Each structure stands twice: as C-alpha cells, then as structure tokens.
C-alpha cells in the first residue's frame, strides 16, 4: 500500500471501511474516492450509516476495518488501530445541532479554534472579520448564540468551521433544522462558500434534492452499503438498483412489476415492453419516470386505469398520484388537473421503460 503525494492523490480516499458496533454493522465495506475540490454528498434514509461514515472521516469514531486517507496521508487505519486525532486532520465539521459554545460570543466561537491552532492575535482578528463577512453576519459579532436565530446560528457554525481554513469540510445534515425557504437560501450559500474556500466537502443528508443540486459526486447509502457512487446526473440516468432509481429524482419515478407473456412483458394484461429486455426472466420491474407517464389517452401508446389520489401543480403542469394494483404511481398532466379521490383515470405510458430491473432490485438493462 504505497502512498502517493502531490496533486494526483485523491483528496479523500475511503478504502474498504467497515464499522461495527457490537454485532451491528453500521458501515459495510465502503470504498469511494473523490478529487480535490469535490463536493461529495452522502445520501440515504436515516440509519443507513452516512453519519457514522462522516464521524469516522472527522476522527470521532475509529473504523473497525479499512483505511482512510486525506491528500494521500493516512488518517485512519482500522486494522492497525492507527488514528490521526480529530484535531490533527486538517478537517472541519459542521454539526447538525451546530454545537456552538453557548458561553462564547459569535466572534469568540470563531476565534477559539484559531487560538487553539496558535494563530497570532492580529491574524485571528483579521480572519474572524473575514469569515464573518463571507457569511454576512458581521453585525452579530458580539452576540451570544442564544440571542440569534437558527439560520444565523447555522452561519456561525459554518464560519467557525471554515475559520482555520481546513482542506476538508465535513457537514452533517446542516440544513435539516431550517425552514424550507431558508434551506434553499443556505443551499446556494453553502455552494458559494465551498467554491470560495476551495476545500473538499463531504455533505451528509437524507434529502435527495440537496444531493442532486449540490453534489459533484453522490454516494447513495443503504443499510451501511454504497448502493451507487457517481455524478448526480449519472445516478439519475443510470441507476444500478431500484433503491437508487426510486430514492433519487423529483417527482419520484415509478416501478411497474411485469410478467413475461409470449414475447412481451405484461402488466395487468397490457403489453408494455419487449420480453428481450428482461433477458429471459419470468418477471421484472420496469422503471418509468413521472414525465413518461401521462394522464389521459395518448393514441398508439398503452394505457392503464388507476384510481386518482391527489394532484399537485408544479411549474404549469400537474403532478398526479394514483393507485393501481395497490401501487402508488406518479404521472404528469398538462395544465391544471383536478379529480375526486377514487375517480378512475387513464394513465398512458409515453415511452419505453427507462430501465429494467430484476425482482431482486439489480439492473438488467
């Protein structure tokens, strides 16, 4: 295992990391690497191991197996029990709870890590003013954390973390405590700060929208494993599993269970695709994006009847949810669409399925 130096080494390399708590495996053999300046988003449902992975990156947990390296420098090695101390990693962590020190002012919170890092007084003062300006909170300098709003606390937490200029910035669901409007605002704010600092960021969230909008690299985690790792659009267009296909994308994509019948794949007696796409399997799941499922009849395209559930207007069109065979389907309608709950509506499949999966979840083609 040789360590390369210089720009060719990935900024963050996670090699076969496993973390067990007693008999429970929280993180299972994760292996990903991103280059310098990347914005890596770890996304998945709660309990998928994303926060544990982040805490291992921060040095707050020791991996049970595997190795982690920042800029080619090994910081964790599970098998040898070798750990760079949390403070010696050149990494900063923004906590979900912000974890501001309640007895220090905003300026005090930002300055203290610099004091620990033995910056000179003049440098500290200049840097505090600089990051306060960067986050737009200069006016709050002398306030205490309890005297400012949640959104402002969030900014202070970020300012405190980027103060010592870490080359790795770790963020643990930083937007989950903000209201919807602030969240969107802080999303672009975080992107701006990421670009301004040039740091490599790792961002943990359960919100796939954040993953899609912010990431240069996305790792979708489920049950401690990486389901898929790649660029956001790559994951969206070529999901390797049904979990990724249904977890990412707005509105959510549809999975239709079909059986082979003759040379076609059939759903409720309706032929949807050629049997060859399932590669000789008896049954399969077809992926249709919401925009490939249209409310109403379309000449020449197969259609099914479903029971109307709800409608939400989005950008001049309407996202319609309906039930068919106990399965929730999402389709689009042009303009505004209304119906009473339980009304039968027709849904047409506009295109061939975007992807075909085996019943066990993995991609066939």
């Amino acid at each position: 295992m040789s360590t390369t130096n210089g720009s060719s080494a990935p900024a963050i390399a996670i090699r076969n990391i496993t973390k067990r708590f007693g008999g429970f495996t929280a993180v299972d053999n994760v292996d990903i690497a991103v280059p310098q300046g990347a914005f890596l988003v770890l996304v998945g449902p709660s309990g998928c191991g994303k926060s544990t992975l982040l805490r291992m990156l921060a040095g707050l947990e020791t991996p049970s197996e595997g190795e982690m390296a920042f800029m080619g420098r090994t910081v964790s090695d599970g098998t040898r029990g070798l750990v760079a101390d949390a403070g010696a990693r050149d990494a900063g962590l923004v906590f979900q709870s912000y974890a501001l020190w309640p007895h220090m002012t905003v300026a005090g919170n930002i300055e203290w890590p610099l004091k620990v890092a033995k910056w000179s007084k003049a440098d500290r003062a200049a840097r505090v003013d600089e990051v306060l300006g960067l986050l737009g909170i200069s006016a709050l300098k002398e306030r205490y954390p309890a005297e400012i709003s949640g959104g402002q606390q969030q900014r202070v937490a970020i300012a405190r973390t980027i103060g010592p200029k870490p080359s790795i910035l770790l963020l643990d669901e930083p937007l989950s405590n903000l209201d919807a409007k602030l969240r969107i605002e802080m999303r672009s704010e975080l992107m701006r700060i990421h670009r301004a600092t040039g740091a490599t960021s790792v961002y943990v969230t359960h919100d796939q929208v954040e993953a899609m909008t912010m990431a240069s690299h996305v790792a979708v985690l489920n049950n401690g494993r990486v389901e898929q790792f790649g660029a956001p659009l790559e994951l969206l267009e070529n999901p390797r599993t049904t979990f990724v296909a249904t977890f990412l994308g707005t509105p959510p994509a549809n999975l239709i269970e079909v059986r082979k019948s003759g040379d076609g794949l059939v759903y409720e007696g309706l032929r949807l695709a050629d049997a060859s796409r399932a590669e000789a399997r008896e049954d399969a799941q077809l992926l249709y994006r919401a925009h490939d499922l249209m409310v109403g009849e379309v000449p020449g395209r197969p259609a099914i009847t479903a029971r109307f559930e709800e409608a939400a207007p989005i950008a001049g069109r309407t996202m319609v949810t309906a039930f068919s065979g106990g399965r929730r389907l999402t389709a689009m309608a042009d303009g505004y669409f209304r119906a009473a709950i339980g009304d039968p509506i027709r849904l047409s499949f506009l295109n061939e399925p975007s992807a075909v999966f085996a019943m066990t979840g993995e991609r066939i083609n």
Partner: protein
Amino acid sequence: MSAVTTSVLSRRGFLRSETLVPIVLILIVSVLVIAPLVKIVLSTLTVEGRDAWQAVLASKMSENLWWRPLWNTILLGVGVAAGCILMGGFLAWLVMLTDVPAPKTLGLLATMPFMIPSFAAALAWGALFRNSRLGGSVGFFEANSYVVPDWLAWGLFPTLIVLIAHYYSLAFTVISAALSSIGADLVEAAQVAGAKRSRIFFGIILPVVTPALVAAASLTFAGAVSNFAAPALLGLPVRMQTLSTRLFGMIETGQTERGFVIALLLIVVSASFLWLGERLVAGRKNYVTVTGKGGRTKRFPLGKWRWPLFGVAVVLCLLTTFLPALILTASSFALQNGSLFSNWTTHFWIGEGGTDMAQGQAGIFRNPVLIEALWTTLKLAVTVALTTMALGLALAHTISRNKGTLLATLLGQVSFTPILIPSIAFAAAYIALFGAPIGPLPSLYGTFLLLVLAASAHLLPYAVQSGRSVLGQISADIEESARLTGAGFFRRMGAIIMPLAIRGLLAGALLVFVKIVRDLSLVVLLFTSTSPVLSMLAYRYAAEGFMQFANAITMVILVLCVVATLLAHRLQNRVQKWKSA
C-alpha cells in the same frame, strides 16, 4: 505504510486511563458505602450479636425494644406521608395548574420548610405548647394561663405535625415537577374531546402524576421514619420511642449490638417502603424530570375561590416557615420561656458568663464551645460539599461514559444505595466499621475525618444526581466540536466544560452544604465533645432545658441554611448573559 504526520494514540495508554478511573472509583464507593454495611451485618452475627437479635425480636424486652417503636415509627411514616401528599399536592396543584395570584412566590415559600432543620419546628412547637407535665419552664400558652393537654404538648401528635410541616415541601417539589410536565396540549386535547374539568383532572392529570404521588409518598415516609430530631425532642421526654430514638438510646448506653440490630431493622423498614413505592410505579415509563421546565402549562380559572385558596396557601406556608423562625427568634431573646414577647434580653446571644442568669453560662457568641462548633460545622460542610461534588462529578462522568457495561451498572447501584438507608442507621454502620481500630489504622470514632466520610457517603446519591444533571446540560457535540479544533483534554475542560458546568456544580455544592449544616440524625451518633457541631449543640441544650440557647443556635443554623439555599437558587436561575431570557 508512511503515515508520517499521523499522531498515534497508544491503545494501551488509552485503555489504562479508561479502566483505572472506574476501578479507583469502585474502591472508593466500596469503602464508603459497602464496607460499613457489611461490617454492621457481621457485627450482629457474633455471639453477642445473636443475643442482641434475640433480645430485640424474641424476649420480654422486645415489646419495648422493637414492637412499640416499630408501631410508632410506622404510624408516623404513614401519617406524615398522607399529610405531605395532601398538603404538598394541594399547593402544587394551586401553584402549577391554577390562576392563583403570585404562583412563583407561593412556590418559593412552599420549598422553604425543607431548607430549615426539622428540629427548628420541633423547638418552636415546644416554645408554644410545652406544658408543666415535666416541670421546668412552660411554653407560651401555659404561661398565658391556657391549659395545654398532654397530647398536644408531647408525643405522637406534635411529632406528626412538625414532621409534616418539614417534609411537605419535599412532596411539593416532586409533585409540582410532575405537574409542570403536563403540557397545555395534553389538557387542551382533553378539552377539545369535550371533557369537563373534573373529568380532565381524574382522567388525565391524576394518572399522569400518579408516579410522582407514589414517589412523594415513599420519600416522605422514608424521611419520617428516619428522622431523629422531632421524636427525640417531642416524644422522648414522655417515653415515646421510635426506631431511630431507640437506636440512639441503645448506642448511647453502650448496648452497641442491640443498637446495630435495631439499625438493620430500621433499614429494612425504610428500604422496603421505598422499594414498594418503586414497584408500584415500575412498568410505567414515567419519569419525573425535577429540573424540567415543561412548555406552556394550562391554568384553570379558580373564579370566586381564587383569593380564599390563595389565603389558605399563604397561611399554610407562613405557619411552616415564618412562624417557627419568629418564635425561635423571640424565644432566644425572652428572659422566660413562656413570655415570648416581653422582658427581652440579649443575654442568650452576647451576655457575659458568671452572672446569675442561665446558671452562669455566657451567651452563645461568647461561648468558646459554640464558636468552635460553628467553625467545625462550616469546615465540615465545606469539606463535604467539595468532596461529594468532585466525587459525584467523577462518578456521573464515568457512569455515563461506560454506559451499558457491568462496571457502570455496579457503580450506579452502589452510589445510589445510601438512599435506602436512614442516616442514623448509616451512622451506626460507620461506628460498627470505624469505631475500633482496623489493623494498623486507629479508631476513627469521634474524629472529624469520620464525620466527613460518613456525610460524604450519605450524600453520594445526591452528588451523583447533580453531577449527572450538570453533565446532561453539556451535549456531546459541544465537546466534540472542541476536540475537532485540536484542543487537548485539559484545554477542553478549562475553556468549554468548566465554564458551562461551574454554576451547576456550585449550586449542588451549596445544597450539600445546607444538608450538612442542618443535619442532626447523622451526627448525633458520630458526635463527641472533640468534634462538636452546631446542630448537636442545639440538641444538647434543648435536652438539658436551656431552650433559649437551643433556639438561638437553631436560628444561626436556620440563617446559614436559608442564605446558602437562596444563593444556590440564584446561581441556578440567574439569567446567564449567554442564555436567552
């Protein structure tokens, strides 16, 4: 493998500090708590011990040694628990759930009686109701030619009243904490469902606070059965014995083994009721958060009853706080016990000795024994406050860090054991262990060190509890975020943890201080003339009939306690500038 700049945490060193501290703590709590209990049990298994068991439980004397004191003890315990639930519960309901005027002031008043020693109320009762049955000076009422019947002057009834007046504020604290956890949402949900007020009270509020009521009942029961001062001052002169006065009498008269047997029996009585209370509420996962500040609470309008009920509450509070203090103060200035408000003299405070007053004794502030006792008391209280808080913090930290391990469970259980043990029985156990030399170590009986050890052990559960609540206010995130900056352990402690914890620690230490200063039942057995403390001196004067001296000293204790408690209250509640109001 070229992890050049990686700092290597030595696993061995890590492990050592991780396991060494708990082991040292286990040793300390074993010596403090387990060893005396084991020793007192062993002491009653010797030949003399077995005779003592027989004498106490199965002989002609057992009626006097065990059954009658047991009956009195249980009667007192049940009576006090019932009285405290009624009185504390009524006040808690008034303060927390109704629109009674000035609820905050009422709440503070209702917690006051617990700050002052229980013998203050007992002495005040004597100053008012003492009758001529025993000879000597009579109290205020007989001196003003009212006849006070014996049942009102001595024995069970006055003891019961005095103990209720002391312990109801404990019940108030527990019940009001539970009531404050009833959010307005809970009540409003019932209102929306169409429930009437009485329905809400019996269907929602009462079931929610039932665990607190049971807890309050068993705590006040345990307090009453282990109390020494009140039955000793009001019951002993007419030979009403409880288990604690019996225990004291046995050890005083050198019948040590019998004393130990009674101590063990007293532990069983008190612990079994606490255990019973615990069992009754076990299963309901309903914990009272004593410091919890529930959200919005719903206040019921009292209508025309608002002011009358307020009046009742104020009178109850004044009768149990200001009246005893007033009587004690007046009595300490009164030339004659009975004439409280005439012929005042400052002799009992600052008079010179050698006159024909008070059999030639000087006033308390000219009495070297008292001055020494004052210093010993302060020294003891400060020492114990510091040692228990340090120990409590270390224990709480170790228990929370090793959560789930056998070690932590063991530490937790051992450090909470003293809760089950009445303090006078605990003192007996300390005599059993340290009363004689252990190997090369000399006997500690009568030393200051023994007082410190026994008091620290007795207050251990309290100290661990306050250590826990102090640490609970500091989230793990806050410490971890400091760790990420690279700050070392001591830097984190100094800059982050201590500034956040210091107020809580000081407040906890002050309350320990109060508990020591006002304590009588623990020191009454461990006291010798070489280590006099104030409460013991007051008790001795009272027993010898020098009521004015006793009352003057009690006032000194009372003032110390109230000042320290108010200070602790301020430390806990003062708005810190970094906390929003």
